[in-house]
């Protein structure tokens, strides 16, 4: 018997959340969703979560398993057992909980809405299809696989401290249009996406890539938008400047080496990779004078939050 330890919350009955353990006999081939269903159907009908396709395509069943967001239907339960034969299941993060594992996606969808998630092209369409080469298709192939499951959003470190950040899913969706050869609004789009709350607020921690169940992999999409923005000459904005000065100051003060703990726990280790990622534009920008924001090592989460606040102003 294995144990599935589930974070329960039902405000109709009790104000706070609590953990409850269920014993389940995990047969080979059982997904985490199968295990939740077994509990709901055989032990406690009030256990609440979303599901529909059970084949990793509808995006309904996102939960946290052992602290990390995942699709319940996509993971073999066996592989999630810790050394004590336990799987800990909690609702997705960075969203209010409605009941048990069901969270409120309102803000998530509002942010998707903010990136104007539809093709903009005012030309009269041709009689047949618009041409798009396989290479052009490739540029939006990955971003278009997003199933809006919210796994990336749940585990994004920036969203934990700054809920103004558009977040990985909305930005991946934005790339779907920035990269689309048929869209006419590229410049407008990258300008808006370069505003505070947009691409430059991402700390490049790569968490969303770890969590994404699809090739959408938001961080790479964010990088692609940055590249387009810089190529289009969109760098004279607060977002880009803040991000760049932040990067530079961390480099200059050597924080990456001296103070790896908070840096790593917040996932900043990838920042130095920024230079390699968007080579031309960034090197060009870094030639300009950018005042360092961080003057002393930050060894507390609070400091990091303060830095984000500073960045916001």
């Amino acid at each position, binding site marked *: 018997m294995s144990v599935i330890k589930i974070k329960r919350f039902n405000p109709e009955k009790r104000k706070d959340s609590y953990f409850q353990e269920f014993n389940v006999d995990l047969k080979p081939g059982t997904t985490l969703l199968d295990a939740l269903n077994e509990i709901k159907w055989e032990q406690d009908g009030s256990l609440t979560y979303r599901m529909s396709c059970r084949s990793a*395509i*509808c995006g309904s069943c996102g939960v946290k398993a052992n602290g990390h967001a995942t699709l319940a239907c996509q993971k073999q339960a066996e592989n999630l057992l810790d050394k004590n034969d336990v799987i800990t299941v909690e609702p997705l993060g960075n969203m209010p909980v409605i009941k048990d594992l069901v969270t409120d996606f309102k803000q998530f969808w509002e942010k998707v809405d903010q990136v104007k998630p539809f093709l903009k092209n005012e030309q009269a369409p041709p009689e047949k299809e618009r041409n798009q080469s396989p290479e052009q298709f490739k540029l939006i*192939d990955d971003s278009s696989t997003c199933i809006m499951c919210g796994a990336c959003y749940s585990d994004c470190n920036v969203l934990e401290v700054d809920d103004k950040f558009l977040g990985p899913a909305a930005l991946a969706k934005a790339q779907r249009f920035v990269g689309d050869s048929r869209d006419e609004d590229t410049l407008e789009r990258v300008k808006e996406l370069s505003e505070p709350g947009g691409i430059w607020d991402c700390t490049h921690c790569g968490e969303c890539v770890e969590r994404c169940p699809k090739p959408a992999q938001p961080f790479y999409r964010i990088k692609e938008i940055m590249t387009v923005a810089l190529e289009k000459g969109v760098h004279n904005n607060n977002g880009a400047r803040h991000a760049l000065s932040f990067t530079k100051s961390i480099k200059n003060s050597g924080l990456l080496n001296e103070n790896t703990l908070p840096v790593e726990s917040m996932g900043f280790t990838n920042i130095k990779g920024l230079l390699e990622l968007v080579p031309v534009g960034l090197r060009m920008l870094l030639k300009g004078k950018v005042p360092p924001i961080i003057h002393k090592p930050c060894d507390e989460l609070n400091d990091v939050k303060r830095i984000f606040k500073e960045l916001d102003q």
Partner: protein
Amino acid sequence: MIKHDVVIVGSGLAGMRAALELCKDHDVAILSKVYPSRSHSGAAQGGIAAALGNSGDDSWQEHMFDTVKGGDYLGDQDAIEEYCKAAPRVIYELEHMGCIFSRTPEGKIAQRSFGGHSKPRACFAADRTGHSILHALHEQLLKNSKSIKIYSEWYMHSLISDGSRCAGVVVSDVRTGAMETMHAKAVIFCTGGYGRVFKITSNAFASTADGVIAAFNAGVPLEDPEFVQYHPSGLWRQGILFSEAARGEGGTLLNGDGKRFMETYAPTRMELAPRDIVSRAEQSEINEGRGIDGKDFVHLDLTHLGEAKIMERLPQIRQLGIDFIGVDCVKDLLPIQPTAHYSMGGIPTDINGQVILNHGDGKATPMEGYFAAGECACVSVHGANRLGTNSLLEAVVFGERAGRAALEYLKTAGFAPINESQEKTKVLNQVEEIYQSDGSESYNEVRTEMKETMTSLCGVYRNEENLKECISAVKDLQSRFKKGKVTDKGKLFNTELYEIMELGNMLKMAEIIATSALQRKESRGGHSRTDFPKRDDDNFLHHSLVYKNGEELEIKKRPVTITKYKPVERTY
């Protein structure tokens, strides 16, 4: 009470396409029990058919012939003609909206082969075509959000009608449990299929027959419910789908002896014969002990395609194999079995999505203000068996047509009177009955037994004895259902309660499917009777219409519309 000009129930391809047709002129509500972009259309992998001719010559006439023949001559040819003619236009429109498609080297929409289609006709976006179209339409919904009100995670309980005119629906908000009546001049049902009635199925948990049963309860007959499609490549024991695209790209089927057994059943089309034929071939191999190790599955072999092609054309399928059974199809064989996949039958409509109550004396009597499109409807373009990629097309073409028909209707129609409290009370009583039941039975057992019964007694192969046993078993389950045990009596996001109501609908649907299967004493398309192995055009070249007659089912006939192609024997 909530009021809208038009209420669309269901936000898959059909529902969203209908909404776009109406939103310029009217106040539209679209309601879905799952968030719109989580509708089951998104699971469609392989493609959407249209004779674009991007990969060699093609024509709507050939598409039409393939569809008629694929449906074993039960499809209505006037509808099929309109549908195949409209196909290229609707695909181009989707492309113009921004829908993503895989491309040919010249930049046109790429097309590939699919079972039963004589030409490479399936437009696709890798192996996530449904997802790509669903999200493109969803994007348009967001773009038009001022005139389309989305009721996400709302459940439709019943259709309000006086028997001849429809006036709205009774719904509830899953999140709060609040029950509401929605008053509307027109209602469009796009509630999808009901594969969940079966144990082995490719369908989502949401595909539970709510829409068709709400129609049925309001006096609308259900057409051709006995025709259920079993898809040949469901993941063993799970039913999760490996798209036919896998065979379209060159995948082969092997039995326990390692033999390509389709040679025996469809020597010319081999693995690309229509689904009913391939599924029966598999089931025969399994029944005759030639499954893998004598078990109830065969192998799908993609290993010869190579990693590059699999990654370009079938990446998601590869991932499904890895995630769900730890098999990487680049190196290993996938274990598959037939899986209940698609419902050819449904709410009878004319070619414009107008719901038809009966066809007395060759004259169709509509239910005014009530339209249906997509998998829940039966136009019928698929006849006795649907060809792969024809269903996404149906949802888009008839979603649009139903939207237009409603638009036309709204030019003159007003709100029909309704008795709000009476309609609400009916549904509230239903909920109360569930809460008051004695709790001596387990809903889970009832559900499991229903699924097992339907898969084993009303599956790929059927016969009189099994069907009779099936019907009586289902009736027994219906009475056990009345004594089920509920744990959650709260209002907040009570998914247990909704699952119970869905089960109630499925139990009725199961009875309807089996009863209609029992009366059709022939084998045609997806309906295969071992005791009547031949098609019988003399006695059964007609649609079945199942009516509610008190607690009994009454079955009537409707002739098939035949225009261009006279029925001939169907061989591949």
